[in-house]
C-alpha cells in the first residue's frame, strides 16, 4: 500500500469519524476531534512561522539588496508579547496589545465608514422613476427597506406610533433578508457535503464515475 492509498483510507476514516457525531458524541469522534485540534494548532503555528516570521521579518531585514527596517517594529512588539511568559514583566505585553487595538480601531473605522456607510447611502439615493413601473417599484422597495431598517436600529427613541410602524416594517425587511440568506445558505451547505460524498463514493470507493 503506497502513501496515497494509505492517505485516502485515513481520510475516509476521519471523514466517517466526524460524521458519526451526528448520531451522538462517541469515542471515535472524540479522538478525531483531538487529532484535529492538535494538527490544526500545529498547522497554524508552522504557517505563521514561515509565512509571517520568516517571510515578513527575517527575509525582509536580511534582504541583501534592500534591507527593510519597518519589520523590526513588529519584531520588538512581538517580543514584548512574549513577556506574558514571565510573571514579573508580563504587563509589558499590554503595549503591543494597545498598539494593535489602537491601529485596528483607527484603520477599520475608516474602512467601514466608507464601504458600509458612505457608499451604501450613495447607492440607496436612487431616482424613483427611471422609465419603467417595475423599476420604480424595485427602487421604492430598496429605499423604503433601507429607511425603515435604519429606523429599527434607533436606540434613543421609543418604537411607538408612526416611528414604531416604520421600525416594524424595518423588521419585516430584516426578516426577509434573513430568510433569503438562510435559503441561499442551505444550498451552499448541501454542496459541502456533496464534496465529501464525492470523496467517499468516488475517490475512495470508486463507485461513481
Amino acid at each position, binding site marked *: 500500500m503506497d502513501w496515497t492509498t494509505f492517505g485516502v483510507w485515513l481520510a475516509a476514516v476521519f471523514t466517517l469519524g466526524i460524521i458519526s457525531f451526528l448520531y451522538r458524541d462517541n469515542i471515535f469522534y472524540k479522538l478525531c476531534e483531538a487529532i484535529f*485540534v492538535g494538527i*490544526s494548532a500545529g498547522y497554524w503555528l508552522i504557517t505563521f512561522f514561515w509565512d509571517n516570521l520568516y517571510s515578513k521579518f527575517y527575509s525582509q531585514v536580511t534582504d541583501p539588496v534592500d534591507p527593510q527596517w519597518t519589520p523590526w517594529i513588529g519584531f520588538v512588539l512581538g517580543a514584548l508579547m512574549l513577556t506574558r511568559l514571565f510573571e514579573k514583566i508580563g504587563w509589558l505585553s499590554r503595549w503591543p496589545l494597545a498598539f494593535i*487595538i489602537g491601529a485596528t480601531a483607527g484603520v477599520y473605522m475608516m474602512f*467601514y465608514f*466608507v464601504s458600509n456607510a458612505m457608499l451604501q447611502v450613495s447607492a440607496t*439615493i436612487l431616482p424613483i422613476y427611471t422609465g419603467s413601473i417595475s423599476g420604480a417599484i424595485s427602487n421604492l422597495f430598496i429605499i423604503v427597506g433601507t429607511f425603515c431598517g435604519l429606523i429599527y436600529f434607533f436606540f434613543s427613541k421609543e418604537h411607538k406610533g408612526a416611528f414604531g410602524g416604520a421600525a416594524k416594517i424595518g423588521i419585516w425587511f430584516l426578516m426577509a433578508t434573513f430568510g433569503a440568506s438562510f435559503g441561499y445558505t442551505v444550498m451552499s451547505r448541501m454542496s459541502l457535503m456533496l464534496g465529501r460524498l464525492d470523496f467517499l463514493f468516488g475517490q475512495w470507493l470508486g463507485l461513481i464515475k
Partner: protein
Amino acid sequence: MTEESWILPNKKTALVVLILLCCFSYTAGQTSDDSLNIVKDSLLTPPPDVTPVMPKNVTAEDIPNDAGGSIRITWDLSPDDHVGGKVKEYRIYRSDQIDGDYEEVGASMMGQAGFTDNSAETGNQYFYKVAAINYQLFNGETVWQVMSETDPIGPMKSTAQWFNMDRLNVFIGIIILCGSIIYFILAAKGGKKFYIRKIAGIEEVENAVGRATEMGRSIYYIPGINDMDDVQTLASMTILGKVSEIAAQNDTRIDVPVSRSMVMVTAKEIVKESYSKVGRPDAHQEDQVRYLTDDQFGYAAAIDGLFIREKPATIFLMGAFFAESLIMAETGNSIGAIQIAGTAMPAQLPFFVAACDFTLIGEEMFAASAYLSREPKLLGSLKGQDVGKAIFILAILIGVILESFGVDVSRLFSVR
C-alpha cells in the same frame, strides 16, 4: 523534324540546346534569386501607406491626491485607430531631458487614449512622447514596424499631496459623526440623561447568567474566530468584561475557549480583572480562558465536544463568526442551553436568529457593552450614533427626491 530526331538530336542542335539551356537556367537562376529577394523585401520593408497618423493633443498631468510617483498621459486617438486600421498600439517614451534619450515606459492597446506611468520618481521632471505603432508579425516575429511619434511634451513632475481632496466628503462625514458622538458623551458626563430603548438580547444577559447559577452549571463565552485586528473582537472583549463581572458576582464559572492567542491574552486580563473588581480574586482560575486552535473548524469541533460533554446552561456567542456559527449554535441548542448571540457578520445573522434564543443584530452588538455598563458616558455615545443615523436617513430622503428630479446627489457620498 521526326520524332526520332527529337529523341536523338544531332550534335549541332544538341550544342545549341545546351547553350540555350545554360543561358536559360542562368537567367532563371537570376530571376528566381531576384524574386525571392523581392518577397523578402516586401516583408521587410513595409508596403507604402501603412504608417499611422500620430495621436494628437498629448497631455501629461500629475495624478492628484496620491503619494506621488504617477503621471497620467492622455491623447486623442489617431484617426487610423479603428478595427483593421493602421494603429496596433501606442507606446509611451520618457526622458528626463527634452532632447535626451527616450526610453519606453509602457504601451496601451489600440482604442485606449491614456496611460499611467507609475514608474516616475516623485519630484523628477520628465518629458514624454507618444508613438502610434503599426507592425507586421510573421511566424511570431516582427518583420517590420513603423511608427510616428509626437513631439515631446513636458516637463512634468509628479508630486505627493498632503490631503486627499477626493476624500473630503468622507472627512466631513467622519468629523460630523465623531463630533456628535463626542458631544453627547460630554453632555452625558455633564449630567444629561438620555432615553435608551430596551434591547431584548441585552436585557436577558443577567437572566441568562442567573439561570446558570440556579442550575449550578457553567457559562461559555465564545468570542468569535477573528483576532484582535477586528473591531468585532474588540467589542466582544468589552462585552466579556461585563458578562464575566456578572458571573463573578453570582459565583458562576465562566469558560472562555478562544481561537486566537492574542484574544487569549486579552481575555485572561479581562476575566481576572472582573473577579478582582467584584472582590473575589480567589475564585478566579487560570484555566478559565484557554486557547484551542487557530483553525476555524478545528475550533468548532473542539467547542462542539466541550458543549456536549460539559453541558453549559448558558452560551454567549459574541464577535466575528463565519460558517462555524451554526455548528456551534445548533449543538448549543441540542443541549438545551440558553444562547445569546451577537455578530456584525450579515451572512451569519440568520443562523443565530434561527438557533439562538436572542440575537444582537450588527449595531446592537456594538451597543451592548455601553448598554450593560449603564455608564452615562457610554450611553451618550449611542445617542451620538443615532444622530449619525438620522443624518443618513435625511440624506437618503432628500437625495431620493432631488435625484428623482434629475439632480445628481448620490455623487456626494461616493468615494474614490
